[in-house]
C-alpha cells in the first residue's frame, strides 16, 4: 500500500493478545504467521497494531498490508484473517 513506513502511531503485536484471546485457546501472538501479500513470516507479536482505529488492525511490519482485522460489534466480535495465509504454532 501507499504509506509512510516511518509512521510511529502503532503498538507491537503483543497489544493484540487480549482481544484475540476470545477466539484462540492459545496465546496466538506467539505463533508465526505468513503475510498473504509479501510472504514475510514472523511471530505475530512483531506485527504492528494501530490502536486508535475503528477496530483492531494488525499490519505486516514488512509491507504494512493488513494481516488481521478484529471488530468489537457489541454483541458480536468479527474476525477477518484473509491477510494471513499461514499460521504456525509450536508445541512446547
Amino acid at each position: 500500500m501507499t504509506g509512510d513506513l516511518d509512521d510511529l502511531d502503532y503498538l507491537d503485536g503483543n497489544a493484540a493478545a487480549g482481544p484475540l484471546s476470545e477466539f484462540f485457546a492459545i496465546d496466538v501472538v506467539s505463533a508465526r504467521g505468513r503475510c498473504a501479500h509479501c510472504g514475510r513470516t514472523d511471530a505475530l507479536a512483531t506485527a504492528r497494531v494501530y490502536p486508535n482505529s475503528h477496530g483492531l488492525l494488525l499490519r505486516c511490519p514488512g509491507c504494512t498490508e493488513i494481516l488481521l482485522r478484529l471488530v468489537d460489534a457489541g454483541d458480536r466480535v468479527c474476525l477477518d484473517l484473509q491477510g494471513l495465509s499461514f499460521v504456525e504454532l509450536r508445541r512446547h
Partner: protein
Amino acid sequence: MGIVSPGFFGRPRRDDPGLPPGQYLTEGFPVLSAGPTPRIDPDEWEFTITTETGQVHRWSWTEFLALKQDDVSTDIHCVTSWSKLGTSWRGVSLDTLFESVESDCEFTMAHSYGGYTTNVPLDDLLGGKAWIAHEFDGEALEPAHGGPARLLVPHLYFWKSAKWVRGLEMLRQDEPGFWESNGYHMYGDPWREERYW
C-alpha cells in the same frame, strides 16, 4: 475489546439536541488511524469518477481547485461515539463533480490512497449533502485528517467520509467497503445508531 474507549476523547455530555443517540460531545478532533498516513503530493493527486461503462472522469489538483468552492458548516459524528458540532470545511460539492457524469448506477464505492474503501449510495452524495473537502477551519486539510482531500458526508457516521480519497466507482449493486465487510453497518445513519450489522 478495550482498545477504543467510548468517551475517551471528551467529557460525557449528552444533553445537546445536535447529538445523535449514544454520542458524546468533543471539542478536539480525534484522529482514528487505521494504518500509516499516506503522504500525497498535490502534483500527483487526482480525483476520478469511474462509471459502469468504464468511462473515467478525471480532475488534477489544479482542475479541482478551479471548480466552484463551497464553505460548509456542519456537525460530524464518529461511530466510536464522539461528535463535533459546527465544524468548518471548504471543498467541492459532489453535485458539481457529477454534472458531467452519466450513469444509471445507484451505488458508489469511495476509494482512497492507502487502499481504504467505503460504500455510499449515490443519493447520499448528491443534493448538497456531500463534498470533497480540502480545507478545515480555514487551513489546508492536514494529512492526519485526510489531506490533501477527503470525502465529507456529514449526515452519515464519519467512517463514510473517506480520508485521502482518490475516486468514486459507480456500482449497480451495493457492496461492502473496508469496515462494512467486517462488522460495520452498510449505511451508517447516526440518528438511527446504525453502527454495526
